[in-house]
Every structure is written in structure tokens, then in C-alpha cells.
């Protein structure tokens, strides 16, 4: 009996690490530009597709090649997201209507989904992990769950270091505090925002690749990752990576519990109920800022 819960826990935390990584990736773009990149879910799927393509091309990858392709995947998605960010920011510079990003990021998501559907049909792709299952608490845990946890911890520390210790990272934080003052202080706002898009691409690109065996790689699976990533953002508090690191696994475990105990079709319902509950009880999230002044 307890073993079943151990499985739920480990897999939940593993899958939840993917949500945590999605949340961190949301955060950095949100901090720099206030934009929530809806296309990020499909960027994650694209990262997984790279893993699929690499296996198809090279056969079973050796760990060294795997590591190199992971970096390549991060870089490729980083570049793609930077280009997407450039296009998203384009109309914002000359229009007073500042909400076009809602449509453009969703539209990019739809376009990627449509291309995936054209390229490989409605079925999900399967990627096999090159690493053997790892014995833990007397059961065998597929390695990608643990790798995803490791990746989440890695990106957490890397981003914390970047945001608090480097000048560029501090400049991006300054955009969140006060974009007008940041611009007045001479920061190259657009360039910093593009950099933030790029970094978010690195995060999802590497995540998609590492977690490829445990996420659904299909043309229509992206929305669920966007949604769960967002739930992690809300629970953790917008712009808080510490919050994301804790909230992601929480969402993952609850989703796993719902799937195992009630049935997969209710997983979405539980994510929604969690979101509603946290918004009603503590809208600023666990680690979020308190409400701003009104007048």
C-alpha cells in the first residue's frame, strides 16, 4: 500500500518538476515584459520532438551524445523563442494597445500545433529513455522522473544566481519593479526582454528534451502543460522561482493522485479546482508580493 503512494510521490514530484520548470520559464518572461507566453507549452513539446528526432537519427544515444544533444536542444529552442519574442514585442512598441501578445502567443501555439499535426498526425510520439530504471525505496523509478527533478534544481539555482548576482539579471528584475524608471535609467529594455525570452527558451528546450519520455508529445498536449505550469506560478506567487520550485511538485503530486485514485479524465478538473482554491484563499500565492496600492 505505502509503495503505491511512494510511486505516486516520486512520479508526481518528477512530473511536477516539469511544471516547476514551465513556471520558472513563464516567470522570467513575465518579469521582463509582463507577457505570459502561451506558446511555451508547444516549445516544450518541440524540445521533446528533438529528443525523438535524435533517437531516430542516431539510434540509442550514448550519455555523452545525450548530454550534447540536450544542450543543442536548449539552444535551438532558445533561438526559436527569441525570434518568437521579437515578433511578439514588435507591435507593442508602436501601438498603444498593449494586449496583442495574448493573441500572438496563442496564435504561435496554434501554428506550432497545426504544423505538428500535419507532420506527424494526431498520435503521440514515444521516446524511450536511454538510462536504466533506478532502484529507489524498493521500486524501480524510470530515470527521466529523477532527471527532471535534477534539472529543476539546476535551473532554479542557475536562475537565482543570474537574477541576483549579475548586472544583466538585476536589470531584468528592475524591469519588473518599474519599467518606466528602468527605461529612464538607460536600460536597453527591448534587448533585455529578448534575452529573457531566450533564457525561457533554454529552460523549456532542455526540459522538453530531458522529460521527453514522461511527457505527452502530441500536437494538442501543450495546453495541459501551459495550464499546470500556470497553476504552479499562481500557487508559488508570480515572479517567485522559489515558489515555482515548491508549487510545481505539489501540482504534480495532486495530478498523479487524481489520475491513480479517481481516473485520468478528472486530472484537468483537479488542476482547475486547485487553481480556483488558491486564488480564492491567497491570490498573491505563497511567495508572492502583496497587493499594490490603488490611488
Amino acid at each position, binding site marked *: 500500500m505505502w509503495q503505491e503512494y511512494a510511486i505516486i510521490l516520486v512520479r508526481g514530484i518528477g512530473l511536477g518538476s516539469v511544471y516547476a520548470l514551465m513556471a520558472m520559464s513563464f516567470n522570467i518572461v513575465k518579469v521582463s515584459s509582463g507577457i505570459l507566453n502561451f506558446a511555451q507549452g508547444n516549445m516544450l513539446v518541440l524540445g521533446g520532438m528533438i529528443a525523438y528526432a535524435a533517437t531516430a537519427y542516431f539510434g540509442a544515444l550514448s550519455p555523452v551524445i545525450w548530454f550534447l544533444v540536450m544542450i543543442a536542444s536548449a539552444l535551438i529552442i532558445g533561438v526559436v523563442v527569441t525570434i518568437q519574442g521579437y515578433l511578439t514585442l514588435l507591435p507593442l512598441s508602436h501601438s498603444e494597445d498593449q494586449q496583442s501578445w495574448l*493573441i500572438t502567443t496563442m496564435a504561435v501555439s496554434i501554428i506550432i*500545433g497545426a504544423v505538428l499535426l500535419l507532420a506527424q498526425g494526431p498520435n503521440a510520439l514515444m521516446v524511450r529513455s536511454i538510462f536504466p530504471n533506478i532502484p529507489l525505496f524498493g521500486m524501480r523509478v524510470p530515470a527521466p522522473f529523477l532527471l527532471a527533478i535534477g534539472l529543476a534544481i539546476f535551473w532554479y539555482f542557475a536562475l537565482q544566481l543570474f537574477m541576483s548576482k549579475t548586472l544583466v539579471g538585476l536589470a531584468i528584475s528592475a524591469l519588473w519593479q518599474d519599467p518606466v524608471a528602468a527605461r529612464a535609467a538607460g536600460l536597453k529594455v527591448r534587448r533585455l526582454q529578448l534575452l529573457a525570452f531566450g533564457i525561457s527558451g533554454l529552460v523549456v528546450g532542455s526540459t522538453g528534451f530531458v522529460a521527453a519520455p514522461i511527457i505527452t508529445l502530441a500536437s494538442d498536449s501543450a495546453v495541459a502543460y501551459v495550464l499546470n505550469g500556470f497553476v504552479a506560478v499562481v500557487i508559488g506567487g508570480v515572479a517567485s522561482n522559489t515558489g515555482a520550485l515548491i508549487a510545481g511538485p505539489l501540482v504534480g503530486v495532486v495530478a498523479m493522485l487524481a489520475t491513480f485514485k479517481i481516473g485520468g479524465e478528472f486530472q484537468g478538473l483537479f488542476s482547475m479546482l486547485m487553481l480556483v482554491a488558491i486564488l480564492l484563499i491567497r491570490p498573491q500565492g505563497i511567495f508572492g508580493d502583496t497587493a499594490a496600492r490603488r490611488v
Partner: protein
Amino acid sequence: MTTRTSTSAAYTAEPNPTFKLRHLLDRSSVVQLAIGIAAMVVATIVPHIFGISYWIGIVNLAIIYIVASVFMSLLLVDAGQVSFGHGAVFGAAAYAVGIACGMHGLPFPVGVLCGIVAALFIGILFALPALRVQWFYLGFVTLSAAMVFPQMLFAFNEYTKGISGISIPLAWMSEDLPIGISTLSLLVLILGIAALITSAVFPKTTLGRRMRVAAASPEAAQSLGISPGKMRFLAFIIASFGTGLAGVLYPPTVGFVSPNAFHLDMSILFFFAVIVGGKGQPLGTMAGITLLYLVPNVFLAQLVEYRALVYGIVAFVVMLLMPSGVVGGIVRWINLRQKPQTMPALQFSQIVDNVKPVERVKDENAIELVDVRKTFGSVVAINNVTLNVRRGEIHGLVGANGSGKTSLLNVLNGFTRIDGGTARINGKEITGLNARQVAKLGVGRTFQTPRIFEQLGAWDNVQIGLDAKLSDNPTLVSPAFVGNLRDMLSRLRTESIPHGQRRLLEVIRVILTDADILLLDEPAAGLSPDERIAFAALLRDLRDKLGLTIVFVEHDLDLVARVADRVTVLESGSVVASGDVASVWNDPKVKPLFVTVRHA
């Protein structure tokens, strides 16, 4: 409201009673409405003449989607509520008809009733989180609901027939009537035209204006006695009712309902249609549905597998090229070609023309503060302030930035609850009242950054003051002035009102609410020296002829000296001096402050 009963009306006629269409709809809306209705009628009739049933169905469905998008637009543009789950409201209505008529054989009118109840139910579910959270938080709640909706249709398959769907035995509705079109097409057309008219007229109704104010600035709404929560709730109710009406016509049009038809994609389509078409433009949703639904599904029907791709690319490209949408972009382009509008200066001297001076009891206090205290954490914003403002006096609040002037105004109009002391306005204790309740006591206020909303027309920004009128008495302000102002502003776009004039319009808005105490936060900032002289005269007229009590925060000490009867000087949240201008001016405690203020 004892004081107001003494204010007998100087005029009995309503200001400018002649109705002009221009006052209701601007030219662009009238043209768009005409094009939209004509297009709908032609698109419905032509396929019937040629008897092409495929096209009849397509046009009906497109109009149904336009109706749903119109109400999506009401929610998004008028009420400022982001919903990515509008398809679930639509789907609930359609499924209710399916279950009632398709599975239980009930007549269509009963199905319609069920459908509207189902739509309202989902709408209320969405409205509840909207009372607490806004913007994309709300967007995600509704988005997840839209995702879950078809999953629930699968999960409860014993009530919904799950994946196999329900076929709808309502073929009689598609048979032609003697007038040449079918019952269904007639219903769809009527609903479509009604929706278009609603989209053009609703922003010009009292409710529409109130919703826009509540969406643009909840605090301004409260100071006008509007409850933002109530506005949001109403918006969800109206939007789901309208969407429900569209949803119940879906099953007879398509002949079949299944969970796959009501995926998230449908919600996204309605949302896209509003924005890609052009937010707030009567023809916008029509353009949006044409581009995003008709073009990929019908005109490119042979490329069926590229449908989603075309759809995404169209939305993306339109937003890159025209961030304010197709119709919005065209309207902007036309406006840019016209010569820029300049606003004539407001002639305030008219505002109290021909008004009999109002007699108010002079010897009472309009505002009484005793030992009022407000702290934010360890910061003392208001430190034991005791202050009286007599009825019919102009009272200046001066002090350095951060000395507590605006905080004091916030207490006076109920935005901030005090931690200690008592505050009475018009003889009523206001501790424990919210801003709306204080507004109803006769307190009007303007803000440091003027709350003139570009979401509203130029005149509508003033009209919301009349909407918030506290008594049935005709306004004391000269009707000729109101009429002229309305004529002038009806021709203007809100964007072309200069900053300084915006403050004055906000003051006029507040005067029109019948408030007898005005709280003005830096009303003269941004005015030219000549405008300041005119403004000072206005304040005196408001006091002498309308008998208003005015508290104003101002940095221009010359202006204060010119119009204020009494002055209160604040420093670090405390009153340094209070009294008539001359004595405060010569107070040894105040002098150094003035010097620093004037040279800062």
C-alpha cells in the same frame, strides 16, 4: 440628506431634451451597423433563393458564432473581464438543448429554456472567481474550465451519451416558411441583428458606461457610487444569457452535438474574433468570424488539413500588422486622415449662468474630523488630525509631497478606513462606510491623475456624472452649459482632449452628480496661468451660487491664497496650522515650510 432638500431647483426642464442620433451613436458606429445588418440579411437570403442548403447552414453557424463573440466582447471590452472559457457557456446551452430535445424528446422551446439556464449556470460559476481575481488569473480559471468541459461530457456519458453524441430531431426548423427562409434562419437572423445593435448601443447605455468605468478604474467607479463587483457579475449574467441564446440555435443548425465540438478551440475562436476583428467596433466580431472561421473552413475547404494552420497564421499576421484589429485598424486609418481635432477651451463662466444663488445653512460643519489617525505598518500617514470644514467654504490643503494630503482625501471619501478618531460628513459618521456609501452622502472627488477614460466617448466621460446623480431634482448647473458641452464633446474623440482639460472635465463630472462636497486632488495641475484664473473663478462660483463645499489639494500657493477661505497646512501627517489664509500665511511654524515648498 437634509441639506439637499433646501436646494430648490432653479430650472425645471431637463438639460437639452432634444434627442439626436449623434448623441447615441457616432457616425462610424452607424455606418458599421448598417453594413453589418445588410451583410447578414443578404448572406441569409441569397442561399435560400438558390436553395443551397450547405451555404444556408454555414451562414447560420457563422451568425451564431458572431452572436457568441458579440457577448464575449461585452464581457471583455465593456466589462474588462478576460474569459477564455466562453465556449463552455455556449456548449452548455447547446448540450442542454441536445439532452432535452434529442434524448428526452421535449419540444424546442423547452430546450431553449434549459439551454439558457445551463448557460447562466456556467456564467455564474465564472463570475464567482471574477469577484476575487482579475485579468489573466481569471483568464486561466476560465481556460481550464473550457478544457474540463468536454472531459466532463465524456466522464458523465450516461447523461450525455459521451463520445457518440446526440442527434437533434428538429428538422422542421429548417423547412422554408412562406416568406422564403426557414424558421431557423429567421431566428438566427433576428438574433444576429439584435446582437449587432446591442454591441453598438450597449456602450452608450447607463449600464454600459458604468461597466466601462468599473473596468477602467474600480476606485473611480466607487467614488461615483458604482459597485465594481456588481458590474462584473451583471456582465457575466448578460454575456451568458446572450451566448446561451446563440448556443441553443447550434443544435438545430448542425443537427448533432458531440463533446469534440466544444473544445477549448471554440473559446479561443470567440476570444480571437473579438480582438482580431477590432475591440469595441460594432463590425469587429463579424470581421473576426469571417477571417477566422469562414476563410479557413469554407473558402479553403479543400485544404482541410491546413485549416488550423491558416487560422493561426491569419490571427498572428493581423495582430502584427494591425494591433487594434482589422476594423479598429481601418477606423484608426480613417481618423488619421481627418484633420486633428482641437478642443475649444471650456467657458466656465456659463456653468452657473442664470442660476439663482442657493441658500444653505452657513453655520454648520460639512466635515468634522476629530483625532483621525491612519497608519500603514509603521508609517503614520495621518497623525491625530482634527479639522473642520464649514459648509460653503473653499478649504485648501497644502503641504509637501508625502505630507498626507491625498491620504486625508482618501479618508474623506471612504477609500481608507481610519484606525482611530471620528470622521463625520454632512453630520453622518463615516467610519465603517465604504467609498460608495460615502459618495451617496453627497461627496464627489477627483483624482491626482485624471480619471478620463479612453474606453468611453468624450461626452460619456461627463455623462457618467449625470448617471450617478444623487437626487431627482434637475441639475443646478446651467442647462445651456451642459447642452453646449454635450454638443462639443459629441464631436470629439477622447484621445484628443488635452491633459489640463481632462481635469476640468472630471470636475464638471463630479459637479453633475449633485455632490455638495467636492474633494479635488490637485485640480489646477497642468493648467496655464490664464486657465488658472478662470478655474479660480469657477471655484468661487461653485461656492457662491451653488453653495458647494470644496476641499482641494494644491501646490500652487498663489491659487490657494486667491480662492481659499481657509487653509490647512499638513506636514508628516499632522496639522501644522489651520485657519484663514492671512493668519496661516504669517504663522511662524508655517513660514519655513512655505519657503521650502516654494523653492523645492
